[in-house]
């Protein structure tokens, strides 16, 4: 069995105030995880704050959007030989205290990618606004059909992956609003997906990257991507050489 070095990937865009706390919480969770913050071209002091908190910092020269930032983290994890990666958002909504629930199935070899769901049985009693709930429910239903497996939270960026998952996402990751497509991609590439119930925190600083104006684009873009994805050929990722 390869060594089990783990890394926490934290994409951050203008999270100067929150990022230090997120990194400290990850350390406090005492899971022996390295931390890399991917600063998505922030104009504020996000990178400096992350560095001061002791994380490795990869600073993108300009804003790529969440998909490009997260993929940068996976590339970092791949190139530095990590066998376990977890992904948490830089705004502090993902609780590092919940990480063991995500990591355990990966380490046990039960899944290649584990997603923390707010809606799965036993998770949060989180109630987002109606419009968002409808959108999330719609995608959950469509994705569940596509992957022939019950998925309740397709928009969750709270994930843990093994080396196969890292390699897949380092090679290919959807662009803006990536999680829904990524979920389908994972299953089509014959990686094992598992959802576990988690709690999440209400946002402290900043807002969701999905504002009211963008939500229509979001829905249309993701539906188009899912539809076209049906006709795309998926390669099974290469095993470790």
């Amino acid at each position, binding site marked *: 069995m390869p060594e089990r070095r783990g890394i926490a990937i934290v994409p951050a865009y203008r999270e100067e105030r929150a990022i230090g706390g997120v990194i400290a919480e990850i350390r406090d969770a005492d899971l022996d995880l390295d931390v890399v913050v*991917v*600063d998505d071209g922030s104009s504020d002091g996000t*990178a*400096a704050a992350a*560095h*001061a908190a002791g994380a*490795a*910092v*990869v*600073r*993108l*020269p*300009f804003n*790529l959007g969440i998909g*490009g930032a997260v*993929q*940068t983290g996976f*590339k*970092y994890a791949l*190139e530095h030989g990590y066998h376990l990666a977890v992904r948490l958002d830089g705004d502090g909504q993902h609780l590092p205290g919940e990480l063991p629930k995500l990591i355990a199935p990966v380490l046990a070899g039960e899944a290649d990618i584990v997603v923390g769901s707010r809606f799965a049985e036993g998770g949060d009693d989180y109630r987002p606004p109606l419009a968002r709930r409808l959108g999330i429910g719609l995608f959950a239903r469509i994705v569940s059909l596509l992957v022939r497996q019950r998925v309740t939270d397709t928009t969750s960026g709270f994930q843990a992956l093994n080396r196969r998952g890292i390699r897949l996402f380092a090679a290919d990751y959807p*662009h803006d609003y990536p999680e829904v497509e990524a979920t389908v991609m994972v299953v089509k590439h014959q990686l094992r997906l598992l959802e576990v119930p988690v709690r999440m925190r209400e946002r402290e600083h900043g807002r969701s990257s999905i504002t009211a104006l963008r939500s229509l684009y979001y829905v249309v873009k993701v539906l188009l991507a899912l539809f076209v994805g049906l006709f795309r050929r998926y390669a099974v990722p290469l095993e470790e050489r």
Partner: protein
Amino acid sequence: MTPLRISIAASVASVLLILVVLELIRSRRLRERYALLWLATGVVLLVLSAWRGGLNTIAGWVGVTGYPPAVLFAVATLFILVVLLHYSTVISRLSDQNSILAQRVALLEERVRPKGEAPD
């Protein structure tokens, strides 16, 4: 039948398009691979403009009975759409490559940055 003056005017315009494209290639402001579609547009338009009988025949095929030069517009529009669509694919590829380069730069910067030094 296509009026002669329309035929002449359209031919002149097509020749101008072809000349401009050739000049852009010559002065290296346009790469050959992107110029080919434009040249094809110019040549097809020139042929349809100058060959009046041909334009009439094609108009007949597609059911344009009243005014054969309308086919010229239709063909020109079609070619422009193809060129635009082609450009969309070019932009998509460029933006993908741009992302990959940005990620590469960021990862390399992290690598060469001395340990303990703050990112700028």
